[in-house]
């Protein structure tokens, strides 16, 4: 019932022009939602620490050492945030040298995995696979300036692939999935989908 009332109220405010006092009520509901999400991040952190603390206590083989690293990270950053503040040079240096460096390194490593995976799996065994291979090579040559240096037609051909086959297919997928989302939305509002309140049982 709560889902139904709040859901329909929010939909009405979005689609229909209503008096400002009603809009104000809807805005208040939205700001409550951000508070709830912020709280859920806090709960998530507690669950994360609890799960990894249990691994450390039980000395789970091959995992507990990594769990210590996670717990230290989860404790140190909020502690520094609360004590010296996010604008202090120490906090910024710590973030840039630890978190930012690790994040960028992991992302860089993905490139090597991707290229290795492409080499092993991107093998055209049928016609549709061959078409996909040709299209992806043309788009790569459209993005890389060397494509234009090789042949001036690559950028035009690549842009055509993006503008017509890709956009056309994506728009179709997006419209179809929007209808699906609409159906799920109405089922949720009418109480046929209860996963959000009953832990997965409809």
């Amino acid at each position, binding site marked *: 019932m709560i889902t139904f009332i709040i859901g329909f109220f929010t939909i009405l405010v979005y689609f229909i022009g209503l008096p400002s006092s009603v809009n104000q009520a809807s805005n208040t509901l939205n*700001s409550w939602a951000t508070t709830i999400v912020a709280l859920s991040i806090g709960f998530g952190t507690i669950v994360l620490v609890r799960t990894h603390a249990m691994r450390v206590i039980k000395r789970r083989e091959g995992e507990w050492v990594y769990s210590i690293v996670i717990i230290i990270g989860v404790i140190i950053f909020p502690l520094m945030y609360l004590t010296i503040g996010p604008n202090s040079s120490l906090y910024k240096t710590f973030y840039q040298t630890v978190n930012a460096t690790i994040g960028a390194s992991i*992302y860089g490593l993905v490139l090597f995995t991707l290229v290795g995976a492409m080499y092993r799996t991107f093998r055209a065994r049928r016609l549709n696979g061959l078409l996909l291979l040709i299209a992806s090579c043309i788009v790569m040559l459209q993005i890389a300036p060397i494509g234009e240096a090789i042949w001036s037609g690559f950028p035009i051909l690549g842009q055509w692939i993006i503008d017509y086959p890709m956009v056309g297919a994506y728009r179709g997928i997006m419209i179809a999935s929007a209808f699906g989302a609409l159906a799920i939305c109405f089922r949720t509002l009418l109480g046929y989908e209860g996963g959000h309140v009953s832990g997965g049982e409809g």
Partner: protein
Amino acid sequence: MNLLEKILNIPTPVISLVLILTISVPMFYPLGLPITISPMVKATYDSIEQLPEGSVVLMDYGLTPASVAETGCGGRAMIHHMLSKGLKIIFIGGGVDSPMFVEKDVPPIAESLNKEYGTDWVHLGYYAGAETGRAALLADLSKIFPKDHRGNSLQDLELLKDINNYEGVSLIAVVTTGSDVLPMWIRQANTPYGIDIIGSVDGASFSIAVPYFPTQISGILNALRGGAEYEALMKRPGEAISGMDSISLSFLYVILLLVVTNVALFLKKDGGP
């Protein structure tokens, strides 16, 4: 093992080593290939260029350590363009890493252009709640951000004296790697309030964003290539342009690898030479 089988079974360390070379060699010996400007990047540039001086831009600076190489250059080029044109920017971030990147990237650009915090740009920090958060902050900034990221009250900031919701915002600029972020802004800002949206996105999110161009999204920068085109448009060569030679050689290497292995596979199926 014959030649065809060797081609089909190149060890991963060899593939990675050649990839490292194709990325690193152009950094020392640049090719200097020309970059043509795509319509989407030109449209992004024009969206900023057509705004009158003093207009306010809301910038969702959603950089993460992983995405900064792809979308950061485009984001920084847009910030430089906006501030040099006399536009005012309100920075917000839907990702927990965003505030760190705003504080790292914006002050050097602002200082180089003699732009002051509080008057020309403000940083409101992180907001939670994804789509609901965006709807809420467009309706009432002070409800989501009682203070800015530096601890100042919003009433004390010159830029926010007359702005507390979407009404004072002329453009929304989004720097993100989240494929759902631009559609969220479209639903909450473009559709109900008609605010123009531009974005600098990563390669994966680009495919999701393109179907909305040019109606709901006024301009898109496609990852590093988009950033390079933007730098070329502004005649301010930077990290993106210098990175394009590495992109060129590494992409060419990947294409060669794919072509050679597929030809080898085809010949092997036919019995081979």
